[in-house]
């Protein structure tokens, strides 16, 4: 499943990041990495608000599309 398709409140584990763009290096440094648990807190417009450990990270769906979760 893609991170983009996760339902509100659901908690998932990141399996793979397939994005090749530079911005994914930042996404990873912010804690969205293989093996991490993330929960979807909120969806507003094109953005997802995720809880990653104790921080809250917002990413747009065009990035979430490249993140495989289960």
């Amino acid at each position, binding site marked *: 499943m893609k991170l983009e398709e996760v339902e509100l409140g659901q908690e998932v584990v990141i399996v793979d990041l397939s994005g090749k*763009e*530079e*911005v994914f*290096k*930042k*996404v*990873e*440094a*912010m*804690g969205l*990495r293989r093996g991490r648990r993330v929960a979807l*807190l*909120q*969806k*507003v*417009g*094109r*953005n997802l*608000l995720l809880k*990653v*450990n*104790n*921080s*809250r*990270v*917002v*990413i*747009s769906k*065009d*990035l979430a599309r490249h993140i495989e979760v289960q």
Partner: protein
Amino acid sequence: MKRITLALAGNPNVGKTSILNHLAGTSLKVGNWPGATVEKKEGRVEFMGYEIILIDLPGVYTLEPLSEEEWIAYRFLTEGKPDLVLNVVEASNIERDLLLTVELLEHEMPVLIALNMVDEAQKLGVEIKDRWLSELLGVRVVRTNGRTGEGVRALLQHIIEVYNLKEKPKPLHYSKELEEFLQRVREKDNEPKATLIRKLLQEERFRSLREEIKRSFGKEAYEVVKDERYAKAHGLFREVVERRSVSSRDITEALDGILLHPTFGIPLFFLLMFLIFKVSFDLSKPFMDWLDGFINKLIAPLTGLLLTALGAGEWLKRFFEEAVIGGVGFVLTFVPLIAVIYFLLALMEFSGYLPRVAFLMDRFMHRLGLHGKSLVPLLLGFGCNVPAIVATRTLETKRDKLLVIAMVPFMSCPARLVVFSFFAVLFFKNPAVVIFSLYLLGILVAFITAIILRKTAFGGSLYHFVMELPPYRLPTLRLLFRTVWVYVKDFLYRAGTLIFSASVVIWLALSLPPGVKRPSESLAGYVGRAIAPVFEPLGLSDWRITTSLIPAFLAREIVLSSMGTIYSAEVKEEEKPFELSEALKEQVLAFGKAIRSALINILSPVPSAFKVEEEEGSLKAVVAQALSPPQALAFMVFLLLYTSCLGTVAVMWREAGKKFALLFLLYSFLVAWLAGFLTYRGFILWSM
């Protein structure tokens, strides 16, 4: 005195700015990194005979140079050669933050860790064994609370000890295989690991080495380094953190439930913006007026008396009274507004609400190619363009910042409303419709400008959205006031001097050659006559109109009073003799009145910024005679779009650079001319 240069490094939102504020106190200065629009904060503190220079690096998650911020941080560490790095780590997100720590250790320079906001971490069930962390890294770890300032002073003692003992962290070891490859690129003994990694990953001559790595590790060299860094950070985290499970919902979650609510979040934002708008403009307006009176009715005549006593001539006396003191007063009148807006912006920023605005508003703004946060400066623009442009500092990228700076001046402010209501009431049956259309025209031109800029100068890059929402925190008043002071100081130094010098030039244009009584005989009058043909196509070839535009460059509403003097050609009325005790009493009373009307303004539901005072009748009669409705409309359109505002140009100069400010001024003039021309011709055709 010995000087120590200290660089503060840390992830965004870890409270680095607050720690810097507590360390540097009022010595803090803001500016930009050379050649960048990224803000640079600098301060100094004296301690035990040492002068410590504090340099705040941009908040970054990694030192890999991806964006402008990371380049700046990386370059400063490698080329700026700080004596010491203070790594601020947010306790509750230590796992993520340790990645940057590991990357800093690769630079092999003295490091000190400030473990910040331990109390928040404890509430979340995160307990950190700071002694063990210190032991593992060979780095001192000091607990701090950036919000209250607790533990921050203790840092100073450690900074000096680390500096004097030349304490270096324990060497960082990656896997044996990777270390062997790194040794193969070593050319000098003292090359830090960061340099070895950069050479290995980037230099052309090591391409074959990278291929060798790929063969033996089964993945790209870059991936190998990245994975080892993460593994190191994760290993450290596992060693030093103990987790308890806590069930309590934290305040951030509860507040986000309301403020980021899918349906209520947006109305709440607009309500908050309305309150901010109201408080900032209504609260500062009476004080701005009072300052204006204080300078012009007390300080200026006092200087005049002094100069007369010294035997100065009439022209010189007027120069000091009107140009110099008046110019200083003009700059100062901006201060209450800038201060109040900064206070509220800092409150929004430090409390953690501002980043959430970006998240909430992105759904509308990204369609226009703008950052969600852009809405804040754009809305403030309706109150006054000057602080609105200053507020673009909250935008992170240069692109977003310049785009919004180019849009703000088209947001019609109350200064324009004063002019519009004068002309609209005089010439049109439905003044409200005319004024409303002018506001819409301004907004339209702002968006067209943004589209043009995106298609030309700022095109190309795809725009993703990635950001962190920090936890809500209540900042201390001391932190807010200090921040306000730092920015007001910066405004006075940079924009203030520019506003002052330009206002003196304008005064000279109106008062040269010495002894002129009427504007028509002054330099400005000649310039006005010379440029009149340019305005012919707009129907505004009357030299009196073009001349009144010259003083109106100070601020648009001045156009009315300057038209008054030019049209009626009246010589300035004789002022009543100045009496010190009377004037002093008057100013004290006026100050009391300012406080009272600030309070009344706050309580009344309608923003007082939009209440327009009536202009005197004599000017109305003259102007009604001199202009026709098409000319009046063309004039309003012109004044709406042309950046006839010294304050705006000055802050633009400060925020985006001289070139940008001057080009924008030219652009706004051309757009205003074109729109004025179309309005005039269109109106005439339509009414035929």
